């Protein structure tokens, strides 16, 4: 076994102290990234991929219909009116679908929002591909104004056959304070 010192006590101490330091680093460099990878792969918490889907599906599966529900929640302290324009859609796997969410900032000042998606059942998350989504970026909105926020998605043809309904939920957070620079200069 590796010896770092001829004094056996010093050797033990150095090894153990290094272990402690490595375990501390382990939290940051292994646990956090690994958790995120597992979340993406297994859809833990119904997290969906934060990047646009670019692959092409092998045609539309007309034989199957999946119901998509849209749900919106405002996090605490978020005064926007925010919600889907349609609450339910019936779609075919493989087809590209479009919808919009509407948002209105009732306050006089400009704000920035971040929408966080979550899919239920969580194992469907990996099959819910967004080709375009307002959730990819922070959404600034001037005071007292509205916006239509587009969402474009494809349900994967490989979606497990026992899933008939998928719920896509967005929680909208006020991230104005988290944004560094000026937001007026949009």
């Amino acid at each position, binding site marked *: 076994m590796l010896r770092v010192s001829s004094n056996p006590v010093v050797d033990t*101490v150095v090894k153990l102290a290094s272990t402690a330091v490595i375990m501390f680093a382990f939290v940051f460099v292994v646990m956090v990234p690994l*958790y995120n990878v597992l979340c993406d792969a*297994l*859809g833990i918490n119904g997290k969906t991929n934060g990047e646009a889907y670019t692959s092409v599906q092998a045609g539309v599966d007309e034989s199957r219909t999946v119901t998509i529900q849209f749900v919106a929640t405002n*996090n605490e302290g978020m005064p926007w009116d925010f919600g889907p324009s349609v609450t339910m859609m019936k779609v075919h796997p493989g087809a590209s679908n479009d919808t919009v969410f509407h948002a209105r900032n009732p306050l006089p000042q400009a704000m920035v929002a971040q929408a966080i998606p979550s899919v239920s059942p969580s194992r469907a998350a990996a099959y819910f591909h967004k080709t375009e989504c307002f959730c990819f970026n922070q959404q600034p909105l001037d005071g007292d104004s509205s916006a239509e926020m587009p969402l474009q998605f494809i349900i994967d043809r490989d979606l497990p056959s026992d899933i008939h309904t998928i719920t896509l939920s967005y929680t909208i957070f006020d991230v104005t304070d988290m944004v560094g620079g000026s937001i007026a200069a949009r």
Partner: protein
Amino acid sequence: MGDHHHGPAKGLSRWLFTTNHKDIGTMYLWFSFSMFILGGAFAMIIRAELFQPGMQLVEPAFFNQMTTLHGLVMVFGAIMPSFVGLANWMIPMMIGAPDMALPRMNNWSFWILPPAFLILAGTLFMEGGAPNFGWTFYAPLSTTYAPPSVTYFIFSIHVLGLSSIMGSINIIATVMNMRAPGMTYMKMPLFVWTWLITAFLLVAVMPVLAGAVTMMLMDIHFGTSFFSAAGGGDPVLFQHIFWFFGHPEVYIIILPAFGVVSQIIPTFARKPLFGYDSMVYATAAIAFLSFIVWAHHMYTVGMPVAGELFFMYATMLIAVPTGVKVFNWVTTMWRGAMTFETPMLFCMGFLVLFTIGGFTGLMLSIAPADFQYHDSYFVVAHFHYVMVAGAVFSMSAAVYYWLPKWCGRMYNETMGKTHFWISFIGFNITFFPQHFVGLAGMPRRIPDYALQFADFNMMSSIGAFIYGASQILFLYNVIATIVAGKPTSEAKTWEGAEGLEWTVATPAPYHTFETPPQVR
């Protein structure tokens, strides 16, 4: 022997600058007892408020601070330091070493503890009050929604974590390098074995806790979003990291207790411990399993079903090595010649109550059933059966068992037995009814409850006051023994006792084993 050596220094500087393992052990033990009284006082406030439905004594916000501090002080202030103190006293004497391997670090690891807890307790007087998010401090309640004192809480967790890591490194270095000639690993007393494994667990997981609170600190003050969904983080990640530390942590608490019981039962059964080898392997197996079961604390967060199944099966497996231990202890008693002095009574109490706690643990491991048990008083009852009966009962047993060796005076046996019976009865009156209210649907950490739970809660409170009072008797008995107990100079206090610590003079001289003994 040892005459040419100086004895302890005089006055305060003896304690401030001591590097003697016995002095440091003593300080750890007194410190942990004072924390036990403080955490107990918080528990008394909790039980007094829960005596009847309705809010009588404290406000809900303060109640939450009490549950939080009770947990933190008991786990980190009372139980863990008490076993470190015991390790300091006993491990060198058990393996025939003159002192710990790193006496100077030993002094530091003790002396950074009191300031850490002073800060933690001091948060009670800060603006916004003490931490109020439970000892498990789940984000975002402990980050975005925390009182300002959370920063001090994080600092004190860092300090006590550092203390634990230093203490563990010391213990491992001592056990690995300071054993007397002939003291092979498989001849070490079980208390040394369980502590060795515990120390490895501590070195592995205390840094993880430090990582978790560092991330909290960064989220609160430096704009990161580890645990905040708004910035792409995840509150559930906190729970994974916390319990990756937290589950090994509960074994950190219980393994030294197993060690104590494995020393005491053979003494009073006058028969060698049954299955020494399997005890060692079972301890190692429990330590290993503790790393792969953490998410059983999180069955209701919405894990994928495969995850639930994995953690359920792994958790159920813990029952096997734990069962082996219980069977071994019972078999050690079988066809022995038993007497029932106070240490033995506490070990019997441990065995009965810990086994009950083990059964409820098995029930809790079953994921679908846990959907009903989770976060209810059933869980509160379960972990007090394993923590109090496991750690506090075995610690009491240890104190009565080794006190004559430490101070050369015999404790009052009648008072010791009275202490046992009052705590045993008080403990059961407190915690047994909590199984009932939990199964009937009472959530934990609530300051007030529905009327259907009133009677059992009143019972529970009465039991808690009885159990609390019994600890005053304990304190009195210990002080009375040190001050005016019947002097004893027999090297072997107990007829059936085995081990190197019983070969030195009583009371144990300030320096022992300066010439290593030869172990056959």
